[in-house]
């Protein structure tokens, strides 16, 4: 997993609520058996017409908007557990998704992919969406060690929560599996001492 420290970037606004993982990466693109290449089909049915031409009006086809931060409505990533959704966002160049809350499985998948799910209040989200929509070149700064999202033009820094262990993992590029493997002895002891056995 790549390391994450700080990110200075503009953002792409997609202020719809309940964006599900079937929209992020439709099921027909899940036939690949590798982790790479899903970015080309990110939001495929919103982004492309059936003949493959870009759809006008979808934000990823709007040259005014670009950057490594996606601004999305509440309950982002609901639905299927497919980690391919997080891979597709990451593969397409996104490093952070900002929303007022995330679906549980997506949040975990994003963290395991090195994609930061950054939760803000609904009020902050709405202000960010309004700002970025009208001023696409607005710079945002995500400082992971400090756990702040800064909007320099507002002279405002907004704190965000993150589990301290997951924070260390992101900063250092560690996977959960490294930690779990280090717990092998405890796991074996647990198996031997469990009160019942199926």
């Amino acid at each position: 997993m790549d390391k994450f420290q700080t990110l200075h970037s503009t953002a792409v606004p997609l202020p719809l609520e309940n964006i599900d993982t079937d929209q992020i990466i439709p099921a027909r693109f899940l036939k690949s058996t590798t982790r790479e290449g899903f970015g080309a089909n990110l939001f495929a049915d919103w982004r492309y017409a059936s003949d493959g031409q870009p759809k006008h009006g979808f934000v990823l086809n709007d040259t005014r908007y670009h950057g490594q931060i996606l601004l999305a409505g509440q309950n982002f990533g609901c639905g299927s557990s497919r980690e391919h959704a997080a891979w597709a966002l990451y593969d397409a160049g996104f490093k952070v998704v900002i929303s007022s809350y995330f679906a549980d499985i997506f949040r975990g998948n994003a963290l395991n992919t090195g994609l930061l799910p950054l939760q803000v209040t609904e009020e902050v989200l709405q202000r960010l969406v309004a700002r970025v929509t009208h001023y696409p070149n607005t710079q945002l700064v995500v400082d992971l060690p400090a756990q702040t999202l800064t909007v320099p033009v507002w002279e405002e820094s907004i704190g965000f929560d993150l589990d301290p262990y997951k924070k260390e993992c992101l900063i250092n590029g560690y996977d959960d599996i490294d930690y779990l493997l280090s717990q092998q002895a405890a796991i074996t002891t647990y198996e031997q001492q469990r009160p019942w056995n199926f």
Partner: protein
Amino acid sequence: MAKSLFDKIWESHVVKAIPGGLEVFYIDRHLIHEVTSPQAFDELRERGLPLLRPAQIVATADHNVPTRNQHLPIQDPISRSQVDKLTENCASFGVELFGLGHENQGIVHVIGPELGLTQPGMTIVCGDSHTSTHGAFGAIAFGIGTSQVTQVMATQCLLLSRPKRMRITVDGELRPGVTAKDLILHIIAQLGTGGATGYFVEYAGSAIRALSMEGRMTVCNMSIEMGARGGLIAPDATTYAYLQGRPYAPQGERWEQALAYWQTLYSDDDAEFEAELTFDAADIAPMITYGTNPGMGIALTGHIPPQVPAGEAASFDKSLQYMGFQPGESLLGKEINYVFIGSCTNSRIEDLRAVAAYVQGKHKAAHVEAIIVPGSKSVEKQAIAEGLDKILAQAGFELREPGCSACLAMNDDKIPAGAYCVSTSNRNFEGRQGPGARTLLASPLVAAITAVEGRIVDITQYLN
């Protein structure tokens, strides 16, 4: 201290608590399939790691398999390669596989329970969000991503934060024509598609107790559709009767030991829940969805909301535009082109029986294409043994071979753009059943009546 059912199972699976709140959490049973496992096997190879407990993993091919001519090689080369990869991985890592053609093959959440692999008190994971289905047996079961699939393969554990607890109590009796599917669609419509995010739900109350195991599975299956991490129901005599004698269920003395343990799995009287909701079963009507998330449901005879809160207007308008519906309108009389009966939500023998019982001696409307995809080879075999295949064929329904099929349309079973499909599956997301497809979620009974009438009707007028 009083504990909930969830607390009892969760706490007995904590290997270690680590500072900051995460826990090393032990997994008893790991179910895998062809779509979310190949990258996990590859990562094990890259890291040179073995499977820690191969005997605790069971595999099947379901998401991306054809539902016709399963005895022939899969025609789509990319799909075939994905299914072949599962076969190769299971062979080289020593995992039991119920692949295409095997008598135990089927949708992963259908075969687990019917083989007795799913048992009370267990922790069960699968790289699929509908793993919550197994909670019907009083298990903690939930969907995981592929990185977590790798973690469980290598260590039989996950690093998790403990979800909050919610109890949903449904008391009273369901009215005629109202099924487990309507019950859960009603609850999701009340809570919304994200309303249980962060929670693990226990379903309780006399209406839940009265459900068969198939009905309980339908309810727990859709827990994820309101954002819950999972859902579970305390095991009882219905659960034990279902499990006894199943191939992987404990036998003999081990059955008695297991039973003694299972009987301790219930929420104590004073158990704490961060959220409690109650419903009256008599308030629940046959349901249908009108929008593009499972929370957008109404009674069949109801109306689409005329307006929604300002913050949700963009999604609501987009959704109705996709579906071709107007705010405030009724769905009664809308013509339907497709009926799909299947998926891990409603493809069990009880579902097929409900459909066959209604359509016997009737015929689907001429403009409707109706397919039934059984959840497993075992369901298919049972349906044939009971003569349901003939009843369905005479009614113009096509009985296919098992798989996830048009629930997510990874294979060739797709609904055309713009067409309306009444579906017994779990998700009505845009494009879920094929690009541009318009899905209306409903029970198998509603689906059967819709297929015969060719349009949305008030089913209570059609019941004997």
